[in-house]
């Protein structure tokens, strides 16, 4: 590549992932440009649909949940009344960690980071008056994912919905928990078995439901670069495919229902490049590495959320602007659904006012900006095509390294991705400290006095109500039936059969999340990580 005028020294001249940037780009830098296939054509760099958002806008899906199922149910109905087009359930930490609201480890955590769901009774309340046959539901849950999914199926069954028509997404991505978010319960291999149980069950019985959302979001939030987010996520995807094939499924039986989830961070063009590279890489992986024949297996569908870690406590209204730019990157990158963060989320779960403004941000982009009218409007930009190629090249390099380690599980056991992320996050923090990376309102352009904003408060009454409800449930349910379901579940876990039917039986007998996860822990053991600094 020819040398151009050097940067002025003062200006940052690399992308957030550390890709050195020229002052401008030419056709020479964007190798392969003249033959870039159209949107809707393999390898889908420019999008998975020919007409993209003209055919169907992205789904506006705000992640939400807090306090008790009653309060969250009310918020869901409000969001649907405001034009939101899908639901996305945020569970509290006890639920995410497979403990019930009345367990000592749950002290102070019930309903704080999401909604508290301990049993089918809670799930019934959560979706009261919401027709699950019509509204798509996404559930952010990982280690206990099969349990919460079973509860959702049970409620849908009570409503009379046809299982074959249910649509939504279960996060169910355990690998990124070991890598980044650390909400794991069991060792990697039995956890992978449970993930595969859900993939297999869905392929056979709930064919329109995405059994997994392979997530880079949390990897990025833990401090990775865009390249690492892309590479680790796709390598996780490869691992899930390997396990499902090992189970005896055919690739085209389940691959069309694999979905992905990426972050939208600050570096506008690098983020768009990341989404385009992701689609292209996955298309080649599915076609060439796995020999998938069904076009739907080649097409990567993904959800995007703006970067929570980019939100600032100082000058919180600036967060609206950050989120808008990040959301634009997601849309210009061809996302299938989008969550825009609320301005108050550096402090707390969002207030109704803040979450409405975040939804309006998407609506302004969708209906006023004209951006959705044309697919991949930035395709052909010398710079963007160069970045797409470079991000892809570097991510493939990581994938080859992890292949060389024997896959993602050995890599995780050796703390490889964990260490790479810790390095990147420390490097970024240093750049912030030195002022090389600017955060408006934090290390430049600070104000004396911060604007005050109104916050959503969750008091301890939610925990109390949850505990009372659990006590009543344990008293009133048929305990003999609950016990025998748990016994059969334990036996299934010890053997090789798919655990999903047994989990379904157990939740219908009002066995709790904590009880089911404890049964699995008894069989599989618990996982503790080696911390790397």
């Amino acid at each position, binding site marked *: 590549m020819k040398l151009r005028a050097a940067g002025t020294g003062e200006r940052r001249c690399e992308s957030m992932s550390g890709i050195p940037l020229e002052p401008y780009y030419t056709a020479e830098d964007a190798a392969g440009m003249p033959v870039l296939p159209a949107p809707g054509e393999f390898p889908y760099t420019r999008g998975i649909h020919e007409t993209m958002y003209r055919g169907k806008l992205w789904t506006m899906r705000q992640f939400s949940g807090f306090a008790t199922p009653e309060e969250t149910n009310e918020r869901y109905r409000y969001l649907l009344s405001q034009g939101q087009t899908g639901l996305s359930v945020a569970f509290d930490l006890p639920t995410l960690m497979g403990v019930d609201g009345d367990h000592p480890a749950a002290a*102070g955590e019930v309903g704080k*980071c999401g909604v508290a769901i301990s049993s089918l009774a809670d799930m019934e309340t959560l979706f009261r008056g919401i027709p699950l046959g019509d509204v798509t539901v996404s559930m952010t849950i990982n280690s206990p994912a099969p349990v919460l999914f079973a509860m959702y199926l049970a409620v849908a069954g009570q409503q009379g919905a046809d299982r074959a028509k249910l649509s939504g997404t279960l996060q169910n991505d355990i690998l990124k928990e070991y890598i980044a978010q650390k909400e794991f319960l069991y060792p990697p291999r039995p956890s992978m078995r449970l993930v595969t149980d859900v993939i297999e069950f869905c392929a056979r019985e709930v064919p329109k439901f995405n059994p997994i959302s392979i997530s880079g979001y949390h990897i990025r939030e833990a401090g990775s670069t865009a390249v690492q987010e892309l590479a680790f996520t796709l390598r996780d995807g490869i691992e899930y495919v390997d396990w499902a094939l090992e189970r005896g499924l055919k690739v085209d039986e389940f691959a069309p229902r694999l979905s992905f989830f990426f972050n939208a961070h600050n570096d506008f063009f690098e983020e768009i490049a990341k989404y385009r590279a992701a689609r292209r890489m996955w298309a080649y992986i599915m076609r060439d590495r796995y020999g998938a024949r069904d076009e739907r297996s080649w097409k990567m569908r993904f959800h995007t959320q703006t970067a929570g870690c980019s939100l600032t406590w100082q000058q919180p209204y600036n967060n609206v602007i950050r989120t808008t730019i990040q959301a634009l990157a997601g849309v210009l990158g061809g996302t299938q659904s989008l969550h825009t963060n609320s301005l108050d989320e550096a402090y707390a779960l969002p207030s109704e006012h803040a979450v409405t403004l975040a939804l309006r941000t998407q609506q302004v982009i969708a209906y006023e900006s004209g951006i959705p009218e044309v697919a991949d409007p930035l395709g052909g930009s010398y710079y963007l095509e160069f970045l797409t190629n470079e991000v892809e090249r570097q991510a493939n390099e990581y994938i080859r390294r992890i292949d060389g380690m024997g896959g993602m599980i050995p890599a995780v056991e050796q703390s490889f991705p964990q260490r790479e992320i810790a390095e990147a996050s420390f490097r970024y*923090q240093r750049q912030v400290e030195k002022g090389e990376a600017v955060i408006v309102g934090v290390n430049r352009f600070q104000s004396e006095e911060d604007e005050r904003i109104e916050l959503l408060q969750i008091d301890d009454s939610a925990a109390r109500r949850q505990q009372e409800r659990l006590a009543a449930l344990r008293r009133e349910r048929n305990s003999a039936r609950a016990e025998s379901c748990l016994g059969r579940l334990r036996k299934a876990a010890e053997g090789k059969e798919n655990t999903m039917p047994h989990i379904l039986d157990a939740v219908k007998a009002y066995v709790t999340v904590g009880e089911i996860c404890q049964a699995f822990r008894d069989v599989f053991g618990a996982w503790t990580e080696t911390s790397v600094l």
Partner: protein
Amino acid sequence: MTSPIRVLVAKPGLDGHDRGAKVIARALRDAGMEVIYTGLRQTPEMIVNAALQEDVRVIGLSILSGAHNAIVPRLMELLREKDMTGLVVVVGGIIPDEDARQLKEKYGVAEVFQPGASLEEIVNFIRSATQQPA
């Protein structure tokens, strides 16, 4: 030469978001302190025992889940029971102003660092707080 300041960086509660705790641990180490990181999901009891065994001057807690009002008072109570009130306890994370004031005034936390606090600020605070006689 005085011996280096020993700091226990701890991550209590169910939350697994350890980015902040890890960055702080490395920054304190780079500043010449001896840092012990507990890893995830430590109870107040485990943290106090680790502090005792490791003979640290400072405990730094990272809490992002909103559970600080349950965890921190319990930890401070255990320190009092074990006669370890000379330790400097700092808390970092998503702690609203009102809670931060209460943790300091009512429970004796030395300082609360909210999002956006710089590493330098934290290092300097720990240095000056450990210079005063316990």
